């Protein structure tokens, strides 16, 4: 009597087997892991110059008058808010302000304040014309 392994070996490939193999092959991306997890590892190789630029950028503190102002005036602009500005970033579409909150409870409470914070920031003198986006970091 044949073992399951022997039976499997003797079985000719059927359409379903070929489809399964093709599906696996379809998922292969040169230079990327087969299983794709974790997705953070899915990066195309950066040029050395780009990497150096990134490092230099992360070490330099980019002055921004508007961001400096809201940092200094945050508690008077938003008294009682559980948040405080942590950093900023901007691209062609948006001026992004990262707000730090101490815990998940504070983040939940911040939900109700975010439209007011956005409106107030947008109305300040010197506010960027582009969209203001708030990002939240806990802890």
């Amino acid at each position, binding site marked *: 009597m044949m073992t399951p392994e022997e039976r499997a070996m003797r079985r000719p490939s059927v359409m379903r087997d070929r489809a399964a193999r093709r599906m696996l092959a379809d998922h292969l991306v040169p230079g990327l892991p087969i299983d*794709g997890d974790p997705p953070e590892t899915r990066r195309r190789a950066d040029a050395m110059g780009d990497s150096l630029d990134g490092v230099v950028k992360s070490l330099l503190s980019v002055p921004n008058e508007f961001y400096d102002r809201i940092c200094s005036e945050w508690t008077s602009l938003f008294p009682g808010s559980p948040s405080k500005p942590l950093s900023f970033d901007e691209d062609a579409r948006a001026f992004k302000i990262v707000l730090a909150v101490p815990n998940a409870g504070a983040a*939940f409470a911040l*939900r109700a304040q*975010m439209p*007011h914070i956005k409106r107030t920031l947008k109305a300040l003198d010197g506010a960027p014309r582009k969209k203001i986006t*708030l990002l939240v970091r806990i802890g």
Partner: protein
Amino acid sequence: MRDALKLHPRFACPYSEKLAAECPGFAMQVEPDVRESDEDDEFGTDPFGEEGDGAACPGLKQRFPDRVLVMTSDSCFMNCRHCTRKGLLSNADVVRTDEDLAECINYVKDHPAVRDVLLSGGDPLVLPDDEVIRFVEAFADVPQIDVVRLCTRAPCTNPERVTPELARRLGRCGKVWVNTQFNCAGEVTPAAAAACACLVNAGMPVSCQTVLLAGVNDSADELLALFRALQRARVRPYYVFMCDPVAGTSHFRVPLERAREIEAECAERIGGLGLPRFVADIPGSPRKIPISEIESLP
């Protein structure tokens, strides 16, 4: 009230109208309420910043590194009164042309960390079958994509839309997961269960994202009845969301403490497979926050 209706008109397809007449919990999601015009409501109409400049390219938004949201349509089979995008529907930035779709595909290819594409809207199933399949196949054919999520309320609001032929074609893509929304047990009608069975039998996992709504499902008994009905229909209860911070939904919001009590009671009365995660989606946060983590409000 007139402002609320202007922003988000009352609309329901014939099936939803019939269901609203039979199921009070569903009717609350269909019928406008005077409290939608509450001027003290502190929330905006676009809590997640999806309007206009929120798009990375036409109709595509990226909030998390491994996922993108693709707006395939700007209408639904009914206008839910608790809709997160009530300020965006009818004039949303959606993928309308082949060029828009090509741009979305190129965006995904340029961001190799993206592995999960959410086809949403509006409801993608308001589109004809061929259009739905065109979207699904376009993203499923990108090798880095593991999951194409079809975010549709059609199994609940218009189950006849889910035909065996459509399910077969979706299932054949091999990467499609369906996320739907049922909010009370009365919504899981035989027709709805048949639509879910159609999708599951075609090889697609079907999950349910419920929204915790005051007056609709804000008790452990009501939610447990829903979770059991979903399991009978082979639908995985996946999330229970706190109502999103969108204007005009103050009457639907359940206090956090009450939500935690409901979650604790549900956890004691149903097994893990039938118990979804109770979470709050916080604009700008890199993850959804389980309400059990929110120990105290400041």
